[in-house]
């Protein structure tokens, strides 16, 4: 639901990800973070457009 | 030309101002009535659930 709502705010749903990783799943944690980092890099910086009047 | 401003107009709902231009004789050359507000209901209601309209559009005018 947060993704749907963020979409209404112009925030690409790829900028939000939910995963469950246990403390013993080191490799999985690293791979998820790397994946997400690449996704975000491809999307580019988030342009807040509420600056200025 | 001399300009007389009535700003704001009062004792009604809404915002408005009146600019009266007087010529050299002191007669009214022209008068302009302007509305210095816009909220955009006709745009921001688009895409909202229709059953919410009776809860949103009464805020166009609370009087």
């Amino acid at each position: 639901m947060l993704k749907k709502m963020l979409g209404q705010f112009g925030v690409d749903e790829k900028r939000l990800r939910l995963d469950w990783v246990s403390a013993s799943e080191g490799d999985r944690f690293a791979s998820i973070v790397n994946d997400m980092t690449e996704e975000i890099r491809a999307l580019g910086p988030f342009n807040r457009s509420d600056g200025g009047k | 030309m001399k300009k007389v401003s009535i700003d704001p107009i009062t004792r009604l709902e809404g915002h408005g101002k009146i600019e009266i231009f007087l010529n050299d004789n002191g007669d009214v050359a022209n008068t302009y009535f302007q509305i210095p507000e816009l909220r955009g209901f006709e745009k921001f209601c688009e895409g909202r659930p229709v059953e919410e309209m009776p809860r949103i559009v009464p805020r166009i005018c609370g009087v």
Partner: protein
Amino acid sequence: MPKLKLALYWAGACGGCDVAVLDVNEKILDVANLADIVFWPIALDFKYHHVEAMPDKSIDVCLFNGCVRSSEQEHIAKMLRAKSKVLVAFGSCACFGGIPALANFTTRAEIMERAYIEAPSNENPEKTLPQTKVKVAEGEITLPELYENVYTLAQVVPVEYYVPGCPPTVDLILKVVNALATNSLPPVGAVVASEKTLCAECDRKKENKKITRIYRTHEIIPDPSKCLLEQGLLCMGAATRGGCGALCIKANIPCRGCFGPPPGVADQGAKLVSSIASIYETDGKDDIQKMVNEVADPAGTFYRFGMSTSMLRRKHSRKR
């Protein structure tokens, strides 16, 4: 005690808050005994130049309703701030942005386009849009600049008190009047309403906070004795400040959050997403998608009155 000097002003407003003050009916005489109203466009003929001429801090209390989204509204907010000892953000628009803050989901350009060009009832073949300065034969006329964003009063000037509500209820208004009359105002920064959520003052039976379906308000006729949220309606009461007497609930319609977030909640919409999602029983990914599909307009429902005070503030466009 000399009479207080009282001012009331409406910025990006609808007049409802001004009418609410008049709704105190015969108690308006108490207000008249207590105060000289020095500015109130809906009822009295004072002009901006009268306010400009007042010495700073000569107005004892100013009740300012409406959001700020134009240069004129900002200018008058600053003027009234300078002239007033106590400035009150009166009503949901001044406190949180209100309904007009839904304009933060669109842009100034889109609003102007729709209002002045596209709308079916328009007769504007030259596609004329309002300008801040226009040269006419006799001279020049001006209009304020419309801002891209909708702001609360406190985002523009410092504010002493907040009276939420769309509009504030007669009870709250009388509370404010009484505090002024007896010189017993709360500490600065106070919100004149309840310190609890709406649920605390709602009389309905609360049994089991577990739902398997969310209904749009036209899909069911709710049982007037049971909690609306438990019946699957999106009632914002769980994350809305109380103090309104649960008027909407008594009319058998769910709360839409006009009293803003309860104490301790920074972002009302986020809190509502979390509250709704936490009571919805799901059995896997498909169920979650079902729930999401059942909420027709999450942003517009959870931030109905509070876009200006939300963390994200407005819809952000991809391009700069």
